[in-house]
């Protein structure tokens, strides 16, 4: 059978961000794939070295368009560790609240993208409609739908009153009903299952070899979650389950992410109900002592690592970001091998790539 080369990207309807995949197909079967990345490289790590610590919060927020808050959380956490700051509990609660809201929004957005890739437009429309609930809450809290500018070194810049808490709790109930509907689709809709079962499979061994993190790893049976394994912010005070599945295919990832959204919802409720009183921030010293630190957070896509080195000046000597998408990109070739061309968008969606994060 003759071979044809199908280009996916840098611009393609299945891609929301630029990425280039050259697929060689025999008929409808993929025999080879080549990946090119770097289209969204903005030289951010170099820019970090030219700005002072406070200015950098603004840049860090713009590494990613979906999980912007978790990036500033990881960054501020690192700088706070360098400074030896004790962040007040109310600030940590609000930080965590935004992190979990962001996770729900990211997972819903992802479910919509997957649904659209397998031609299930209705689920796409529903998830993106209901994601607006989360976006509205985040906008009310911070003034921004995507870039929140909530974190500051030493605390947060927003506050919330009890009336607002009640209104958010009421809307979270609506959201939970909607997520239950999506869970029903994932579990019971036949066409959804035949398009996601047994494709893009990664075994636990493969996942471990590629150092895959986050929901993709958890869907392959690797029980990792920084929120439980190495709690930061106030995760040690929250009660939640880490969702793990064992199939390792796109369907398992869907399950993990959808059920994780429900867990995040529960966490948001706990955070809002137990929000302690107290100051929102502590004053940060003017000088960052020389030293280095590694700060880790569980982003919606998995473990996010910030390495910050200070030489005692007002600018960091080096900020290195390691995003969860990177290992997923490496594991992509394995998942694209020997599948149907029609399954490529589903596999691509399944790993939930964030190219802007990975390229920086």
């Amino acid at each position: 059978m003759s071979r044809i080369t199908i280009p996916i990207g840098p611009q393609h309807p299945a891609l929301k961000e630029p990425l280039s995949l050259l697929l060689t197909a025999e008929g409808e079967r993929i025999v080879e794939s080549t990946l090119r990345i770097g289209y969204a490289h903005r030289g951010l790590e170099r820019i970090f070295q030219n700005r002072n610590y406070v200015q950098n919060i603004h840049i860090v927020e713009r590494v990613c368009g979906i999980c912007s808050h978790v990036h500033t959380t990881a960054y501020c956490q690192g700088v706070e560790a360098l400074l030896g700051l004790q962040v007040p509990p109310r600030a940590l609660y609000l930080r965590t609240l935004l992190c979990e809201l962001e996770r729900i929004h990211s997972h819903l957005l992802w479910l919509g993208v997957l649904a659209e890739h397998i031609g299930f437009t209705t689920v796409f429309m529903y998830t993106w409609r209901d994601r607006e609930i989360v976006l509205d809450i985040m906008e009310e809290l911070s003034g921004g739908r995507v870039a929140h500018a909530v974190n500051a070194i030493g605390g947060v810049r927003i506050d919330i009153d009890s009336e607002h808490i009640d209104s958010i709790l009421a809307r979270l109930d609506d959201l939970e009903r909607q997520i239950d509907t999506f869970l029903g689709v994932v579990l019971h809709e036949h066409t959804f299952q035949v398009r996601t079962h047994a494709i893009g499979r990664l075994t636990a061994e493969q996942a471990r070899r590629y150092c895959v993190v986050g929901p993709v790893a958890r869907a392959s049976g690797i029980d990792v979650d920084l929120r439980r394994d190495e709690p930061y912010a106030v995760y040690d005070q929250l009660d939640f389950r880490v969702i793990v599945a064992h199939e390792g295919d796109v369907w398992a990832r869907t399950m993990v992410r959808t059920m994780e959204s429900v867990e995040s919802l529960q966490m948001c409720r706990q955070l809002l109900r137990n929000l302690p009183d107290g100051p929102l921030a502590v004053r940060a010293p003017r000088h960052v002592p020389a030293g280095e630190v590694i700060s880790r957070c569980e982003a919606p896509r998995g473990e996010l690592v910030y390495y910050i080195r200070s030489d005692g000046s007002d600018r960091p000597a080096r900020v290195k970001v390691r995003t969860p998408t990177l290992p997923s990109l490496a594991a992509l070739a394995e998942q694209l091998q020997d599948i149907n061309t029609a399954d490529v968008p589903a596999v691509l969606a399944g790993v939930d790539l964030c190219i802007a994060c990975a390229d920086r």
Partner: protein
Amino acid sequence: MTDCLSALFSLLIFPGFAFLLLCALAFQWIDRLVVARLQGRVGPPWYQPLADLIKLLAKEDVLPTEAHELACAALPMVSLAAVLTAALYIPVGKHSAPSFEGDLIVVLFLLSIPALAYFLAGWLSGSVFSVVGGNRSLLQYFSYEVPFLMALSGPAILSGSWSIAQITAQQSHAPWIVLVQPLGFFLALTGLIGKLKRSPFDIPKAKSEIGAGPLTEFSGRKLALWQLSLHIKTAVGIFLLVDVFLGGASIGLPAPAILVFGIKALLVLLVLSLVDVLYARLRIDQLVNLGWRVLAPLALVQVLVVILIGVG
């Protein structure tokens, strides 16, 4: 002279080109509106399909240098001509179409020409996506066409006539065929969804996989003609099912024929819209499996039942 005029009228105005165009646009609007409302969207205003058509007609028409220019210009016209010709033999409301024994077969043949034109368009328009889409459309054609043909032969065998007008006329004093052959109606509807490349069988034009499939490289007037032929095919396909399975304009009550016919057609359209909303797109191998392992045997059973019980 009057004969000539009335022939021209029926060819160009009703139930000919103008009427079909109107139906195609109206059905497209209703379909888009219903789907949008079911998906929690607002949906387009009534003139949107017309505006889209005019916009496309006015747009620049470009083709890649690899494309076969003559074929790419001719194929959308062939496709449109085939569906318009097929429409001639399908009675709409009380209007009696020029019918002859065997016109059902002619109509089915004419309705399958667009599928072949679509495949050729993919093959000749010089893009990888359109070649893959063309291959898929041909595979899809082989999967839905057999059950579709068999499902439509059921009513013909039952009525003892291969003329659509005859089959329709017989249902005015007998139960509608959908009541006698519900399985056949279901299969014909499934086949029609495959024919119209609607979700869940929108495989050849799966946009997240292969752009717009065979039509990826088409633009301007050619794309407008393709879309028009698809939308007229939707109307013609629905009219065909209404005539063959739902008794055409007959309802057993004194009511205007065209109104009854229109309501039945809208109901079929509504079913198509609902199916569109409810499912994810299948993969081509899954469709081939479905077509040959489920739909074709079911169609065979339906035909056998008609032959053994209905006639005997």
